[in-house]
């Protein structure tokens, strides 16, 4: 929906832009201090936790992000320390540990007498049955989701497949998810071929359980631009990661569009829950299923 509103503005902007003028400008924010950037996602399906610690750089700079090499980073589970991260060759810090659903985690990075930290709670795995369904004319993927009454959930649905053949190895996330699921968030929604599969959602289809809490719902959809084998997944993410995903996708959408035709929108901050710096420390749990032989045509 937002995209429609913005596209409305584009066409009108064209009219004015024809008479107008576009020129490059230099904006000097050089005096701004560097900021610590801490990033990491706890994935309940992974045995290792990875976080990255870097520093910000000036706007439109070509230099690489400065890696913070000498930080002491630790992970706490329900206020109990579970381990110290060790730095890899890159900017990544690693810790062999599998996060547990329902538990709260805190990451603390001590660097140059400063503390950079954040907290997250790992969501439960989505209770979902994923299958291929068939209507009178078309086949599609169906997720039967049983939402938990006890938890507030933020769900993201999409698929991973191959651009071209599997042998070519170009693995990709779907460029769009088509669905007529009425509770889908409209922030990345655009009007697709409704008569076939429904609205088009860029990369993921997002929804929360505000209107379906404790209920079982069927979500029918079709990913686009990828070939089998296809991995269909539904993510349940914590509130911080949800906001990071939504705000970064929205800003990407705006920047893509403004790259084509200049539009007037106020850039907004991408969500960060990092204290003493910026970045994101969130958590995710997922249910997925691989489909290899299904003919979707």
């Amino acid at each position: 929906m937002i995209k429609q509103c913005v596209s409305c503005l584009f066409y009108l902007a064209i009219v004015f832009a024809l008479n107008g003028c576009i020129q490059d400008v230099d904006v000097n924010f050089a005096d701004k201090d560097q900021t610590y950037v801490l990033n990491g996602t706890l994935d309940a399906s992974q045995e290792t936790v990875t976080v990255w610690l870097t520093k910000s750089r000036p706007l439109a700079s070509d230099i690489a992000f400065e890696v913070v090499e000498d930080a002491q980073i630790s992970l706490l589970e329900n206020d109990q320390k579970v381990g110290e991260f060790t730095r890899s060759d890159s900017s990544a810090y690693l810790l062999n540990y599998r996060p547990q659903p329902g538990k709260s985690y805190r990451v603390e990075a001590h660097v140059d007498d400063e503390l950079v930290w954040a907290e997250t709670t790992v969501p439960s795995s989505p209770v979902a049955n994923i299958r291929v369904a068939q209507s009178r004319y078309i086949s599609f993927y169906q997720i039967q989701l049983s939402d938990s009454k006890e938890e507030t959930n933020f769900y993201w649905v999409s698929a991973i497949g191959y651009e071209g053949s599997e042998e070519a190895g170009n693995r990709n996330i779907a460029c769009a998810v088509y669905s007529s699921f009425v509770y889908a968030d409209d922030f990345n929604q655009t009007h697709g071929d409704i008569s076939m599969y429904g609205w088009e959602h860029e990369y993921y289809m997002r929804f929360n359980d505000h209107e379906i809490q404790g209920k079982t719902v069927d979500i029918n959809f079709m990913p686009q631009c990828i070939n089998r084998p296809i991995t269909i997944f539904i993510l349940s993410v914590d509130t911080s990661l949800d906001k990071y995903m939504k705000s970064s996708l929205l800003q990407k959408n705006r920047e893509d569009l403004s790259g084509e035709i200049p539009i007037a929108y106020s850039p907004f901050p991408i969500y960060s829950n990092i204290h003493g710096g910026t970045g994101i420390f969130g958590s995710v749990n997922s249910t997925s299923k691989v489909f290899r032989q299904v003919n979707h045509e």
Partner: protein
Amino acid sequence: MNKSLLKRIFATLLFNLLFVLLLSGQNKFTVSGFVSDRATGERLAGATVFNSESKSGTACNNYGFFSLKVPDGRVTLLVRFVGYETQVQQLQLKNDTVLDFRLSTNNQLGEVKVQANSNENFIRSTALGVNRLTGNEVEKIPTVLGEPDILKAIKLLPGVSFASEGTSGFSVRGGSPDQTLIMLDGVPVYNVNHLLGFLSLFNNDAINDSKLYKGSLPARFGGRLSSVLDISMKEGNLEKQAGTFSLSPIAGRYTMEGPIVKNKASYMVSARRSWIDVLFMEAQKQVGNSEQFLTYGFWDINAKANWIINRNNRLFLSFYTGRDAYQMREGEKDDSNYVKFSYNWQNLTGVLRWNHVFSPDLFANFSVYNSRYKQTYLIKYNVQGNNHYKGFNNLNDVSLKGDFDWFNSEHQSFQFGYQLSYKKFSPEIISIKDDSTSIELNKDIFTENLLSEVYFEGNIQLTDRLKSNVGFRTGMMSTSGKNYFSFRPRLSLRYLFSDKLSGKLAYSRMTQYLHQLQNTTLGIPTELWVASTKRVIPGTSDLFSAGAFYQPSPAYDFSAEIYLSNLHHAIQYKPSTMAFKNRGESWEDYVTTGKGKSYGLELMAKKKTGRLTGLLSYTLSKSTRQFADINFGESFPFAYDRRHQVHVVGDLFLGEKQKKGIAIRKSLSANFNFASGNYITLAEREYQGIPLPYMDGSRYDANWLSQLSLIERINNYRMPAFHNLHLSYQLKRKKADKTVIWNFSVYNVYDRLNPWYYYKKGNRLRQISLFPIIPSVSYTYKW
């Protein structure tokens, strides 16, 4: 303000009021009546009636009614109004007298001799920070594409700031656009934009007069925090049929007015329609694109009728509606790929007013009005529309008002009244329907509120030199089981140093029960009108102002004013609300409450008579906001904050000559503007992000997530200074009752590319300028 100090001031004023009331029982008669235009019969609000013997006078109310107490015996009354010949009337009074005055406009003369107004309003009244603009004055100001616009003209006044070039949104003394109450014939209008804010909805051919109150806000106005813009439509010519037909490059206007029954009842109808949709359609036909079709246009209609039932009773019925409609269609109607997207917004106002003269010194107006605003976006997936996605934002305001003017004595008059309002706000309603599903979201989160208020204000001459306007507005707003009571004192004082110089002070406390939530400073109606609720308490403001007013001769006005505005409980969206807000959640979860502060100095010089007339204004100001959840709770510059603003408007009469019975008049107008750049939010640095889940390893994580923009402060960048110059040449050919006006204008004469907005393209920041040099021609035919 210190409460005990306030109490002392009010006690003093109350004592003075009683004292003056006791002394007012002298042997005096009342002269009352109406002042109107001789040619059209239109009543002249603000015309002054001045008793030259006693050096006292009064101004007509909004309906042209005056009442003046004068001593018995011989009196000389001077009746004056700007742009009209002064009428002098000598009377020998033996009892109360009813007398109507009909003034002639002075442009019937062969040369421009714009009669200066008396100093009654400028020097002698207690009004501070009040500016008046007529439809005729607006017409002379050069504008982009030749479409006269009262809201563009308002921005030339001191203390009024704008966000982006060409848009009609404005800020008065640091207030947000929604903190100005904009009324058309006494009815609030909730969205004043056409063409995405590049044009206001006020059709200048239908406008008679407007007043901007930004300093002393009389108690009869309430409901907004910073200012009031009171616009009145033409009443309709009581004498003869008349009309106006105008063409500009973007719209056409047609106005008809005339008597229904001569000197008893009249009407006025004015319609305007844009050409843009026609141009869009034609362009698409030429390109031959049948797959996709796009159109955008607007129209509006103003209508008014009035009936003079008898000397003491008059009815007015006013109506306005206007609509902007954007549509985009893909695929043919019977095609399975058919999609139609539309985005519309519409205002509708209607008001019935009854003027009643109870006695020579008591005038009343009763109004009942309805103002509606509706914003709709719709996606239809088939022609029937039974497969759709629809969103609404609705506002409905029904009000009943009574306003009384009591002209008690030569030295005092009182206004009092009441208002009852019912408002229903229905924001963010979503309806989704397809073959198998039909749901409506947010239909239960509408807000209803009931407002009941009374007001009282008194204009009291305390001494020969000191005059006061003291009053209050008080009442209750009830919403969802919560009652908000407010008492808002108003005070303005005028001290007369001489007939040419006065000093004034004013204080107003204001309360606002509704708010406009915006994601952008453009006039794009993506904003929501929402009400105060249990959780979101009403906003309040304290406005202080002081000024010196000097009129060395009737031709010149000079003023200097300072002001301080404190806003409390203002609300604003939290950062990234657009990104974080979930469908089905209330807007209340995404607003933050804060405060604002604005202060400044305003200087104005005005030349009102002679071949060259004009205005020079300068504003030095600062405006900030502070919200708990924005900018880490630190104060930040308001988006409309511009440190310096200079506006120069001049109109030069080039002469008039007669040719074959046709009077040809020529004039040249110029408008120069300078303003410090306004503030916008830009990324300050870049940082490394992480791929979203399952994007890791795909092509999508490579670019945009590896390099994100870091924004830490709101409105962290001031754009370069804004300046431009516009010229227009007006050729007026008049023969008998018919007038043809050609207006040749050049907008932005020296092609200054003022930044309209910045946007990011790759690693570069780019500036877009929308209005280079733009010549235009407009045509008007009046009969």
